[in-house]
């Protein structure tokens, strides 16, 4: 992520709203992006220090140096710099060499040992060639690390796009709270929420979707804390995985407070990975078979949808795999398939289902599972066991019973 000094100059405030000075993909910037990509690629195998110097030379007297540095930072973050491979710890080399005492290039009466002799002693001691000893001396400094790879194949447009995403993220460094309205992509949203250790409070929106307030553990007690700003920023690309969402955050800068808004109309791409439509073949097979036999195209059919409802459980959520809605009368029920699992996973799942207390939830559980059946008995809704795959006839009968 970009550092605050690279973000701040590109934030403007207009009537209490934060406006980002987006970087347009116009010819001059495309050219700059191209220059930087080429320059970095040319530095594979060279040190970070050399790259820094080359970057300074490229920027020279450009007045848009903050932008160029920002673009370069995006490239650096994706790249990998590694220390040179050595058989010894550089700190040990230093201890040995420096322990021999201060030296000078030329010897004199009081300083009979020259620098060359001191290095030669280390060459013998460590059994390494002279140049390796010289390099090893400070090989653990960041500036001595070598550029191993650039990390991804960049096009100038990719770089500018990613830079803009980083600007969008960076504004959140100064935020105390994030409020999101989302209408799809629930699963990825909550997956990343958990990953970045954020807390939330969600409530359904009247016309579908959810309002979610994000904050950190201590936020409710310390208003306006920006302690979690970096986590919000880290999380933000998860929002861009969804199709329809909007976001608001309160931004606290020394001397002023403003509002920051973003939504899915913004043409930015997330670099986070979107999860596949189905988690397992079990799910995709079920969906295909269900649609073929009882799908919305049939008479009295059911519309099968993927993860379109969340069950709110205080500080966590459950997102059932499917919902089915009767095409004609609108009756609806949720379906969760429990396939291959670990006992702990199943225990948590059962606890969630119990906590949900939903009578319109159908659990399809793979029998091979060594779960004691009685453990699932006080689960609301219905539980159907299956051996190879769910029996469609039984499933639809259960749906008919449970749907409300």
């Amino acid at each position, binding site marked *: 992520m970009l550092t605050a000094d690279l973000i701040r100059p590109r934030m403007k405030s207009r009537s209490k709203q934060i406006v980002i000075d987006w970087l347009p993909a116009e010819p001059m910037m495309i050219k700059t992006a191209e220059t930087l990509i080429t320059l970095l690629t040319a530095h594979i195998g060279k040190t970070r220090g050399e790259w820094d110097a080359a970057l300074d030379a490229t920027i020279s007297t450009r007045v848009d140096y903050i932008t160029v540095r920002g673009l370069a930072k995006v490239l650096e973050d994706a790249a990998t710099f590694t220390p040179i491979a050595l058989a010894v710890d550089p700190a040990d080399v230093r201890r040995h060499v420096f322990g021999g005492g201060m030296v000078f290039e030329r010897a004199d009466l009081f300083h009979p040992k020259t620098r060359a002799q001191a290095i030669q002693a280390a060459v013998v001691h460590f059994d390494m060639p002279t140049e390796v000893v010289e390099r090893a001396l400070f090989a653990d400094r960041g500036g001595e690390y070598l550029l191993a790879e650039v990390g991804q194949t960049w096009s100038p447009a990719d770089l500018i796009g990613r830079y803009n995403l980083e600007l969008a993220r960076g504004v959140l460094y100064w935020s105390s709270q994030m409020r999101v309205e989302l209408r799809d992509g629930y699963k990825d949203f909550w997956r990343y929420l958990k990953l970045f250790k954020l807390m939330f409070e969600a409530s359904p929106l009247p016309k579908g979707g959810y309002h979610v307030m994000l904050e950190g553990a*201590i936020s409710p007690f310390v208003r306006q804390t920006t302690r979690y700003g970096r986590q919000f920023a880290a999380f933000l690309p998860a929002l861009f995985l969804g199709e329809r969402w909007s976001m608001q955050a309160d931004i606290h800068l020394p001397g002023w407070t403003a509002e920051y808004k973003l939504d899915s109309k913004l043409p930015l791409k997330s670099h986070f990975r979107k999860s596949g439509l189905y988690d397992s073949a079990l799910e995709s097979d079920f969906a295909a078979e269900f649609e073929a036999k009882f799908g919305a195209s049939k008479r009295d059919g059911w519309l099968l949808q993927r993860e379109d409802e969340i069950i709110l459980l205080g*500080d966590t959520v459950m997102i059932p795999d499917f919902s089915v809605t009767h095409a004609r009368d609108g009756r609806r029920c949720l379906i969760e398939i429990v396939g291959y699992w670990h006992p702990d996973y199943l225990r948590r799942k059962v606890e969630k289902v119990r906590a949900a207390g939903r009578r319109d939830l159908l659990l399809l559980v793979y029998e091979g599972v060594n779960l004691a059946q009685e453990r699932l008995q006080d689960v609301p809704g219905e539980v159907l066991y299956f051996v190879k795959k769910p029996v469609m006839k039984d499933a639809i009968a259960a749906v008919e019973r449970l749907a409300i």
Partner: protein
Amino acid sequence: MSGTITFQGGTLVLYDVEDAPPPFQMIKGRPRCEAYHYPRLIEWIRETGIRDNVPRWQTLNLKMHDDRPAHDYQIAALDAWDKADRRGSIVLPTGSGKTFVAIHAIQRVGRSALVVAPTIDLLHQWYARLVNAFEIDVGVYYGGEKIVLPITVTTYHSAGDVIAAHGDAFKLIIFDEVHHLPAPSWGEAALMSPSPFRLGLTATYPEDHEQEGTRWRVEDLIGGIVFALKIDDLTGDTLAEYRTQRVRVDLTPDERKQYDDDYAIYAGYFRQHQLVKTHGKFWLNELMRRGSFDVDARAAHLSRQRIIALLAGCEGKLEALEKLLREYSDERCLIFTENNAVVYAIARKHLIPALTHETKAAERKHILEAFSAGEYHAVATSKVLNEGVDVPEAKIAIVLGGTSSAREYIQRLGRVLRKSGNREALLFEVIARDTIDVSRAQRRRPQNVQR
């Protein structure tokens, strides 16, 4: 009653408990409160039979290897803190052994402890003192290193992160220079910690009016003052005699040309735009701000940077340094430079240790100790030794450059000139003739320093 209480990111959360009393509030479906309430809740937790999952601290079997006897006032301070249920602040004048008191507090408690220091320099100093006192591995958590161990040192800046993740791993938390605590983001860390034992250390406890309008008071976060010793109760250390000497060097013809060219650009801009007149001491910020739209300002700024880089490591200075090092190679010398590049160049050239912000805690400790023991005769450093670091053995300081702040200068002086024996200490200021070095050195020298 069943149910559990758990530490979560700086808060306490109750699971399966109905009707939780204040300070708990229902937030996100569960009763929650700030973790610093924990010690006051212990009794309630016990009475109601709630399972207490909070404490994850360890019992430590600490052997004290620092066998210097404690002063009476240090023992009195510790006893007072013990009597106050091991909470509250000890106010002691600078130089009266606050760290020593804290180390004894850790040993008395014998449980995992977290020390919070204001700066990375002080963090390094705590690290060295703790390792020496207990001869165990000590964790350090700050921007450069993140190692959490049963005894860990962190900075106020990073404390929130350590505590959010590991606050329940420490039974004792010590705040060095505790007067920093009323600052908003710094006090948050104390609020997030469940540690029942808390110790604040300071020479200047915040006055009532200084704490007014702040979000919290030090007393609320760690307890009141349990012991205070006034400055005149102690006799302070006196500084040894010292002498400052200027060494003037010339730029080489090439350097002179580069300097003059850059100076013309830089000075030219300033003749036209009198930033010091219009912006006072913020002239540099203004120059940088203008650099984002005005090519001339940008060029002037870059020229200034090149001038400073040139002066930091010009040949004449390095030659002068070599002469001084040859002359004083039996003494302990500290070399101060403007930037890290020059530190590492000197370290390479003369094969002497470098101390910069890149130096990790363990190696830094080793360098300073080996320097004190006389194993190393010289150490090259940039700005890291600026505050509160003791190197009493240093007899020679060689300043090759540095910012013009008077405070920095005085502290640099103070460090080399700490009394040890009765020999005179020497401070060499190496400056380049006919350059901005001269005026910078002038500014650096506070009026009350003897020549």
